[in-house]
């Protein structure tokens, strides 16, 4: 059951956010509300799955010397498609994520998986890896968004949950809140896991 293993490893044991600490820029920047974290995670997952599949398909056609520029062009193509589709069909989400969509191009996870996994494995496993990593990244960002939204705005996905007497901790939806939340989550997750570090291909 190798396919299953490639799929689920991204959920927890090799979770890109909590175990490999990759793609920290969007993780910290856009997770001030649950819906933003979810949308960013899904957009990244889409790019990751597509680029993993294409990179794995063309890995023998691209000479070693130019594989990085080649991968970057492939990734940038899918990011631009995601950007256009979001702008046309989900203008509200596009407005919030704005600048961070083009920045998916330089997200370490995507190039890291292309270089470290898709360029060495077949299409099926690469797709599984992309889906697993994408889901892992998405739930991590959504969790951060949920925690910061509850603390900072007293709501989840825009629905108030904390009652009227709740004092909003505004710092949680500002940049320092991202570092505080991520730090505490990493502490909890590291103490839950026995193996403290996982080898990754990209830092």
């Amino acid at each position: 059951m190798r396919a299953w293993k490639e799929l689920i490893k991204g959920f927890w044991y090799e979770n890109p956010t909590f175990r490999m600490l990759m793609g920290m820029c969007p993780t910290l920047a856009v997770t001030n509300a649950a819906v933003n974290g979810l949308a960013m995670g899904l957009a990244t997952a889409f790019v990751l799955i597509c680029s993993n599949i294409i990179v794995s398909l063309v890995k023998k056609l691209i000479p070693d010397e130019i594989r990085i520029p080649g991968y970057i062009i492939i990734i940038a193509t899918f990011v631009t498609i995601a950007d256009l589709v979001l702008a046309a069909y989900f203008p509200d989400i596009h407005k919030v994520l704005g600048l961070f969509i083009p920045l998916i191009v330089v997200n370490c996870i995507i190039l890291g998986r292309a270089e470290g996994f898709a360029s060495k494995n077949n299409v099926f496993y690469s797709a599984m890896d992309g889906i697993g990593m994408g889901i892992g990244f998405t739930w991590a960002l959504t969790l951060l968004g949920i925690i910061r939204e509850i603390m900072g705005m007293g709501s989840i996905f825009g629905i108030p949950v904390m009652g009227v007497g709740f004092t909003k901790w505004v710092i949680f939806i500002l940049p320092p809140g991202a570092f505080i939340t991520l730090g505490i989550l990493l502490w909890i997750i590291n103490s839950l896991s026995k193996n403290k570090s996982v080898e990754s291909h990209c830092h």
Partner: protein
Amino acid sequence: MGKSFKLIVILTIISLLSGGVLASAYSFTAPKMQEVALQNQQKSIFKVLPGIKSYREFENDKNMIIFEGIDDNGNVSGLAYIAEGSGFQGKISLMIGLDLNSKQINGYKVLEHQETPGLGANIDGETFKQQFSGKSWEDPFKVKDDIIAITGATISSKAITDLMKKSVTEVIKIYGGEK
């Protein structure tokens, strides 16, 4: 020489393929994006000019985007225009509605802002917005005087208030000067 030529050819092919894919993706999404932009504009004009039936653009040589709102009887009852100014962290862009009969501000809609979430972003909240609905053009528009600022966002509140006062005067001058 032969090696680098091969690399150049391969990278060129990859770029061409990518360009082709993007061109078709763009031509597929472009009409939808235009539609969204037009819809947003329409929605915000009808929001700030309640009760109008249609609108038309008012041409002027001052580079202001002004729309005339037309009521059921075919008369121009209000003006909607886009005002831009600096906020706390970046550009603020508003659609402002004016009632020509009562010489009052109907209200505004925030088209674009980069204010602090949770604080300055409340310029888009109803509590702050309501202060401007039904406010006369002649009022002083001073924060802490006739406008209550948002807690923790004095600069954003002041930005909106100043922008409102400045742009109303300007638009009335442009519109009044030509009519």
